[in-house]
């Protein structure tokens, strides 16, 4: 079970708590995690990445295990600690704006 931590506004949009747990088949990659997240919470589609290109939105970042994975390839495997659920995959809204 993979743990995903969402920023405040996406929690309220999906009406979930800080963290959701997802069953992800295959390797734990950004794409696989976000595919599973959007399948379970369709209202989040388009809020983290583009509907069509699947590119990350500019003011969203992906952190895990103390590292920034925002600019890593979508299909690159994430750390085993994320795959095992020991550490959450953090979706973070950038510190910007008013």
């Amino acid at each position, binding site marked *: 079970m993979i743990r995903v931590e969402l920023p405040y506004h996406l929690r309220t*949009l999906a009406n*979930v708590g800080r963290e959701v747990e997802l069953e992800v088949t295959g390797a734990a990659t950004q794409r696989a995690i976000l595919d599973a997240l959007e399948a*379970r919470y369709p*209202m989040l589609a*388009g809020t983290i990445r583009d509907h069509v290109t699947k590119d990350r*939105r500019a003011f*969203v970042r992906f952190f895990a295990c103390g590292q920034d994975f925002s600019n890593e390839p979508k299909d690159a495997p994430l750390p085993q600690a994320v795959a095992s659920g020991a550490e959450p995959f953090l979706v973070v809204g950038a510190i910007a*704006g008013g």
Partner: protein
Amino acid sequence: MSGVRVLVGTKKGAFILNSDGKRSQWEVSGPHFGGWEIYHLKGSPADPKRIYASQSSGWFGQVIQRSSDGGKTWETPGGGLTKTPDGMPAGESNKFVYEGETGTHLFYDGSSKPWKFTRVWHLEPSLQDPDTAYAGVEDAAIFRTTDGGKSWQELPGLRTHPSGARWQPGAGGMCLHTILLDQKNPGRMYVAISAAGAFRSDDGGKTWRPVTKGLKSTFLPDPTAEVGHCVHRIAMHPGRPNVLYMQKHWDVMRTNDAGESWHEVSGNLPTDFGFVIDVHAHEPETIYVIPITSDSLHYVMDGKLRVYRSKTGGNEWEALTKGLPQENCYVNVLRDAMAVDTLDPCGVYFGTSGGQVYATANAGDSWAPIVRDLPAVLSVEVQTLP
């Protein structure tokens, strides 16, 4: 007894104000969608309980919300029959994808830039069907839903008009912010785009043509060009749809022939820069504007918040000041932030960048704030309830 529901979109959420027909006591609910920019909310003329809301943020993009109970509860359309394992609505209301090749438009620096969807500025529900609504978006295009907001399809004839490559953004982005539906001529509709101009369709949005003859914009190399005008707002009285009033970047304009030709009616206004314009519900020749100092000074003139009313369809204007601040006031009123009810006397409502919503229950003779200290107001719509 009849009532009024005022739908207020702000920079940090939506608010709904309710009153009975006297319009003297108001109940405020909200913020709905706190922290999100609510560019626009609008109720369906066919079913007042159905309200659509455009919820967006620079971080997380666009979401469409829908209420079926007059704004008490909301859902991302698509909920209901289909639920997620947690029982949540399985809505995906936020997918706005241009049809086919996107092409390019002009950017601020004169370069060509591909169309890119940013947000929904304006929602215009169908006059007949609560499940049908139009969305005006940035970068400028028009979309339509026929399933209550669950899915949106572009009407690409507008964006792919041959002039599209010459459209360019105004300071707020290249937004389609005005959609007018002609209830007497099915299939006829108008849109306005900053800064492309005004367009009309006579076939339900399939094909479009500019309706800008008579507009003059001195910031353009050719001031009377077919496209490039920064139209801020167009207003129509539903009973007389061939007469339209326009607040342009500068100039208040009028057409008597469905946009075939426009003429200026700024008359004695202290400045003819502004954003909003609207028409009295029962007097098609009575119109309202709120002059803003200039394109460099986006606040009202001389520290005075004044609505100007013309009872002659333009040219002759009177300042309406009773109940409005007449010193140290430096607010702006944005293009979608004025609306009228259909009670008698007509009520007029507008919201400011300072977070006040002012209303008159006597067609403008006197005003009062019905709520104040909200986040900056982006839009105001009014539903007159039976």
